[in-house]
C-alpha cells in the first residue's frame, strides 16, 4: 500500500523526478571525469572517456523510470488520453453512444435494485439463515402458527431449536400525548429481539423478563422515531396508549430493521402479554411463529420433531378447538432468511420478467453501439493504417480501441446509474400508494454497484469486440491504397453490420410482443367487472374511541355517523361496511350452517362475513339479483336478516336461498341466526383475477360482533364530486363526535389500481422499452442502408445512366431493408413465442398462442422499419448519375 503511494507520488512529480535523476547521473560523470583527470588524462580525453563509461544514459534513465511506473500503466494512461481526445473530436457520436449506454445500464440497475430489495436482501438480523417460520399447513394452504400453549412446548420438548418467538402485525390505533394516530404495530413475545439478535440503536429493546413488566414497555422503529419524533432523544420514556393500556417507550431498533415482513415496516412493537388470555387460548391462531434452528440440526429433523409435538398437542386440544384444528394437518418449517414472503410471492414473477426485458434492452443497446463503433471504425481505417505503418502493434491498436469503448461505457454508465436512482424512486412511490402501501428498501448497496459495473464491463467488451476484431485485421497497405471504403474488408464490416441490425430487429420484435401482451393484459383486467358499477366512491376508515363497544354505545354511534354524513347536501348516498372490495383486507372464512340442511360431504360451508349498513350496495352500485336490499328498518329490534352474494347462492344448489336461515356458530345461541332476504352480485375481493369467494352480508345494526372500526363509503351528487366530500365529512363527523378517528381516506378507484400494481408496472415498462427498442432498430436499419447506399453510389449512378428508373433504384433499397426486417422477424418469432409462453401465467384474456399479438408486433415493426428504409430509398433515387460518375 505504501509502495503504491510512493509510486503515485513519483508519478505526480515524474517530470521533477527524471530531472533529479539526470542531475544525479551528470554528477556521477563529473566525479568520474575528475578522477580520470587526476590519473593523468587530458581534460578532453577524460570527458570523452567518462561519457563512454556512462554508456546509454537515456536507457538507464528509462529503466530507472520503469522501476516506478509499469509499462502497462503508462500505456493505459496513454490510451485513455488518446481515447478521450478522439471521442471529443466527435461529440455527437459520443453523446449518442453515451445515451444508449445510460439507458441500458440505467434500466438494468433500476430493475436489479428492485430485485435486490424484494428477492435478494436477507433480514438484517443475526444469522438469518438459521431462522425458520413455523406454519401449520391445512388443506386450504398455510395458516398462522398453532396456539401458543402448543407452540411453547416445541423448544422445550425438542432439541432442534435454539429459541422460538411469536409475533403478529396489524395496524394499531394508538395515542401519544392524547393525540390519536395509526401505526403499523407488532405484538411480539418478550424474547423476540433476543432471538433475532437485534441490538438497540438507542435505549433498550424488550427482553423475556419484560413480558410481565407493569407498566409494559414499547419499542419503536428508527423510521417511526424519525417520522414522529424527529429523532428527539426525549421520545424514550414517552407513553403510548393502546386500548386501555399504556406503554413506556424503552428504545429504538436499528435503522435497517423493520420487522419480519419486507415491504410493511413495523413502527411500534409491544409485548404479546397485553392479551395474555389469547396466549393461553387454544383457539388463538392469529399470530406467527419464528424459531432459530440449532446449527447442528438439519431442517428435516427439526421439522419432524416439531411436527410430532404439534400432532400430540393438537390431539389433546381436539375437543375444545375450533374447526381449524380439523383441517390442519402438518406443521411445516419455512426458511425465514428473507422474512415473510407475501411481497416475494406477489412480485417475484413480474420482477423476473422485468429483468428479462431490461436484459434484452441491454443486448439491443450493445448491438446498436457495436454498429456505431463499426461504422466509426470504417471511417477511421486510414488512421489505423497510418498508425500501423508507423509501427503500432496490432495488439496495441486493439487495446486502444477497447479502451476507447470502455471509456465510452464508463461515460454512459455514470448518468445511467443516476437515472436508475431516479427510476427506483418513482417505482418506490408507486409501491407506496393505496390502502396498504409497500415500503421498498431499494437503497443503493455494494451488490447493486457490483452489478452495474459488471453489466457495463461485459456490454462494453462485447460491443467493442467487433470493431476491435476488424481493426486487428486491417491491412495497412490496402487501407492506404484504397481511398474509400470499397474493399473486401469493408464488405465484411457491412455484412457484420447487417447481421447486427437483423439481430436488433429480432430483439425488438420479442420486446414488442411482450409489450403488446402486457398492455392487453392490463386493458383486459380493467375491463373485468369488479362487481361495483360506481367508481366515484370515496372510502375512509372510522374508528370509535376506546370503551364505546364495551359499553354498548357502538350501534348508536354508527347511526349518528350515517346521519351526519347523509346530512351533507352533496352526499347522494352513503353506507358503512367492515371492509370494501379490493381493499386488501381479508377477514378469513367463518363457518356457517344452513338450518335444516346437513352437508353431504361433511365439508364446511365457509363464508366471509361483511357487516354492512343500508346504502352500502347502493353507493357501490352493486346489483341486486333477487329479493331485497337492507333498509333502516333492519335494526336491533327486528328479525335478523342477511344478504348473500352469487357465489354463496350456489351453495343452495336447487333450493331458493331466500327465506333460508343461516346459523353462525357462536356458542350455539339463537342470537346468531339470520334469514336470507336477498342475493347480490359478486364483487371482486382479493384481486380482479380471482373469482369472488362466498359472502354473507349482515346489517351493521344487527352485528355478529359489534364493530369498533368501519369503512364509510360515499358517493356524491356531482360527477367527480366525491373527492371534494373529504373536508365536509371530516367537519360533520368532528361535530358529531370529536373523538372519532378517521384514517385511510382513499378513492375506490385507487384501491382498484393498487391491486394492479404488478400489471401496471409490467405494462408500462414493457411498452416503454418496446417502443425504445423499435426506434433503436429503426435507427440501426437506417444507418446500415445509408452505409450501403454510400458504398453503391457509383454502381447506382451507372445503373441510372444506363436507364434504370429512380423508382427501381428506390425499390431495390426497400428490398434490402425488407430482407433485414423479414429475416429479423423470422429469427425473433420463436423467441417471442417462448417469451410469451413463460409469461402465460401472468397474462389475462390473452394467450401466448394468440396470433394477434404476433401480427400486431410485426405490423408495428414493419411500419417503423419500412418508414426508415423509405427515407433511404428516396435518397438513393435522388442520386444524380452524372455527378456520381464525375466525382470519385
Amino acid at each position: 500500500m505504501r509502495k503504491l503511494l510512493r509510486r503515485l507520488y513519483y508519478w505526480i512529480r515524474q517530470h521533477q523526478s527524471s530531472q533529479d535523476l539526470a542531475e544525479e547521473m551528470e554528477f556521477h560523470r563529473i566525479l568520474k571525469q575528475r578522477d580520470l583527470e587526476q590519473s593523468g588524462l587530458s581534460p578532453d580525453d577524460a570527458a570523452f572517456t567518462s561519457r563512454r563509461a556512462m554508456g546509454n544514459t537515456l536507457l538507464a534513465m528509462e529503466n530507472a523510470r520503469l522501476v516506478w511506473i509499469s509499462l502497462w500503466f503508462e500505456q493505459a494512461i496513454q490510451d485513455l488520453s488518446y481515447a478521450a481526445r478522439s471521442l471529443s473530436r466527435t461529440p455527437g457520436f459520443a453523446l449518442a453512444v453515451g445515451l444508449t449506454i445510460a439507458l441500458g445500464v440505467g434500466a438494468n440497475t433500476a430493475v436489479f435494485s428492485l430485485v435486490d430489495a424484494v428477492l435478494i436482501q436477507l433480514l438484517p438480523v443475526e444469522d438469518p439463515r438459521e431462522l425458520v417460520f413455523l406454519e401449520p399447513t391445512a388443506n386450504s394452504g398455510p395458516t398462522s402458527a398453532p396456539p401458543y400453549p402448543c407452540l411453547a412446548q416445541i423448544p422445550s420438548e425438542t432439541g432442534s431449536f435454539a429459541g422460538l418467538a411469536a409475533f403478529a402485525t396489524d395496524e394499531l390505533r394508538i395515542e401519544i400525548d392524547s393525540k390519536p394516530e395509526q401505526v403499523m404495530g407488532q405484538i411480539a413475545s418478550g424474547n423476540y429481539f433476543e432471538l433475532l439478535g437485534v441490538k438497540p440503536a438507542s435505549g433498550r429493546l424488550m427482553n423475556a423478563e419484560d413480558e410481565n413488566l407493569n407498566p409494559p414497555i414499547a419499542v419503536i422503529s428508527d423510521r417511526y422515531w424519525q417520522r414522529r419524533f424527529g429523532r428527539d432523544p426525549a421520545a424514550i420514556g414517552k407513553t403510548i396508549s393502546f386500548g386501555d393500556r399504556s406503554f413506556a417507550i424503552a428504545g429504538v431498533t436499528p435503522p435497517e430493521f423493520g420487522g419480519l415482513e419486507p415491504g410493511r415496516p413495523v413502527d411500534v412493537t409491544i409485548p404479546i402479554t397485553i392479551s395474555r388470555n389469547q396466549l393461553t387460548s387454544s383457539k388463538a391462531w392469529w399470530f406467527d411463529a419464528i424459531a432459530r434452528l440449532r446449527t447442528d440440526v438439519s431442517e428435516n429433523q427439526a421439522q419432524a420433531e416439531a411436527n410430532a409435538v404439534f400432532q400430540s398437542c393438537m390431539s389433546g386440544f381436539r375437543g375444545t378447538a375450533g374447526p381449524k384444528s380439523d383441517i390442519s394437518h402438518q406443521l411445516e418449517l419455512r426458511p425465514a432468511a428473507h422474512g415473510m414472503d407475501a411481497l416475494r410471492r406477489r412480485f417475484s414473477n413480474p420482477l423476473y420478467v422485468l429483468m428479462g426485458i431490461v436484459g434484452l434492452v441491454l443486448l439491443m443497446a450493445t448491438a446498436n453501439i457495436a454498429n456505431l463503433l463499426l461504422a466509426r471504425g470504417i471511417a477511421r481505417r486510414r488512421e489505423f493504417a497510418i498508425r500501423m505503418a508507423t509501427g503500432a502493434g496490432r495488439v496495441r491498436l486493439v487495446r486502444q480501441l477497447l479502451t476507447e469503448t470502455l471509456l465510452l461505457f464508463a461515460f454512459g454508465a455514470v448518468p445511467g446509474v443516476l437515472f436508475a436512482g431516479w427510476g427506483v424512486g418513482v417505482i418506490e412511490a408507486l409501491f407506496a400508494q393505496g390502502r396498504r402501501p409497500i415500503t421498498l428498501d431499494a437503497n443503493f448497496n455494494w451488490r447493486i454497484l457490483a452489478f452495474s459495473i459488471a453489466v457495463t464491463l461485459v456490454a462494453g467488451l462485447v460491443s467493442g469486440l467487433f470493431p476491435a476484431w476488424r481493426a486487428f485485421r486491417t491491412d495497412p497497405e490496402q487501407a492506404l491504397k484504397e481511398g474509400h471504403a470499397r474493399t473486401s474488408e469493408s464488405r465484411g464490416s457491412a455484412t457484420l453490420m447487417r447481421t447486427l441490425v437483423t439481430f436488433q430487429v429480432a430483439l425488438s420484435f420479442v420486446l414488442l410482443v411482450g409489450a403488446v401482451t402486457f398492455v392487453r393484459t392490463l386493458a383486459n383486467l380493467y375491463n373485468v367487472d369488479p362487481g361495483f358499477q360506481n367508481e366515484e366512491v370515496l372510502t375512509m376508515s372510522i374508528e370509535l374511541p376506546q370503551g364505546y363497544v364495551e359499553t354498548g354505545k357502538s350501534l348508536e354511534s354508527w347511526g349518528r355517523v350515517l346521519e351526519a354524513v347523509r346530512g351533507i347536501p352533496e352526499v347522494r348516498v352513503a353506507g358503512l361496511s367492515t371492509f370494501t372490495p379490493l381493499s386488501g383486507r381479508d377477514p378469513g372464512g367463518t363457518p356457517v350452517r344452513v338450518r335444516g340442511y346437513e352437508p353431504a360431504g361433511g365439508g364446511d360451508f365457509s363464508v366471509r362475513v361483511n357487516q354492512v349498513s343500508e346504502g352500502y350496495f347502493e353507493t357501490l352500485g352493486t346489483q341486486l339479483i333477487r329479493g331485497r336490499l337492507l333498509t333502516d328498518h333492519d335494526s336491533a329490534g327486528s328479525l335478523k336478516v342477511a344478504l348473500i352474494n352469487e357465489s354463496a347462492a350456489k351453495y343452495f344448489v336447487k333450493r331458493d336461498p331466500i327465506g333460508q336461515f343461516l346459523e353462525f356458530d357462536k356458542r350455539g345461541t339463537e342470537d346468531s341466526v339470520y334469514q336470507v332476504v336477498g342475493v347480490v352480485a359478486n364483487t371482486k375481493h382479493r384481486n380482479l383475477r380471482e373469482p369472488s369467494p362466498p359472502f354473507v352480508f349482515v346489517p351493521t345494526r344487527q352485528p355478529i360482533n359489534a364493530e369498533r372500526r368501519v369503512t364509510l363509503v360515499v358517493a356524491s351528487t356531482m360527477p367527480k364530486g366525491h373527492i371534494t366530500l373529504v373536508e365536509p365529512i371530516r367537519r360533520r363527523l368532528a361535530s358529531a363526535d370529536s373523538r372519532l378517528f378517521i384514517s385511510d381516506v382513499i378513492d375506490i378507484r385507487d384501491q382498484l389500481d393498487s391491486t394492479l400494481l404488478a400489471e401496471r408496472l409490467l405494462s408500462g415498462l414493457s411498452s416503454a422499452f418496446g417502443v425504445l427498442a423499435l426506434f433503436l432498430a429503426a435507427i440501426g436499419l437506417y444507418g446500415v442502408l445509408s452505409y450501403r447506399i454510400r458504398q453503391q453510389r457509383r454502381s447506382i449512378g451507372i445503373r441510372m445512366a444506363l436507364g434504370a428508373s429512380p423508382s427501381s433504384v428506390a425499390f431495390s433499397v426497400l428490398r434490402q431493408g425488407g430482407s433485414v426486417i423479414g429475416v429479423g422477424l423470422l429469427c425473433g418469432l420463436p423467441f417471442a413465442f417462448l417469451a410469451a409462453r413463460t409469461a402465460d401465467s401472468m397474462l389475462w384474456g390473452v394467450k401466448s398462442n394468440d396470433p394477434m399479438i404476433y401480427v400486431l408486433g410485426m405490423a408495428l415493426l414493419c411500419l417503423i422499419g419500412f418508414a426508415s428504409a423509405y427515407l433511404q430509398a428516396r435518397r438513393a433515387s435522388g442520386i444524380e448519375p452524372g455527378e456520381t460518375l464525375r466525382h470519385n
Partner: protein
Amino acid sequence: MPRSDDALNLLPGTLDLLILRTLTRGCMHGYGIAEHLRSVSENVLQVGESSLYPALQRLLLNGWIKGEWGASENNRRARYYTLTAGGRKRLRAEHEEFDRMVAAIQRVLQTA
C-alpha cells in the same frame, strides 16, 4: 526491467545486496557507492551506471533506502542515500539467503 551487468548477472538481486551492505558504512552518493564496490572488490565489480541507478530507484521504491539532496565536496548538488530500518532488515535477510545460496553452490561444486 533493467539488465544486470555481466559481472553480476550470476545471482539476481546481488547488486541490491551489495548496495545495501555498502550503505551500512553511512550515507553515500551514487558515485561513492560505485567507487566503494570497485575498490573493495579490487576492480572485479565494475558497476555500470546503467544498472546502478535503476537499482537505487528500486530500493527507494521499496522503502529500503532513503535519498536526500545535499551539497557535495565540489559544491554540486548530490543525492545521498542512507539505509532505513526496513533496509537493515532486508539486508540481514538477503545476506542469509546469499550465504545459503553460495554454500549450496560450493557443495555442488565440491561433490560433483
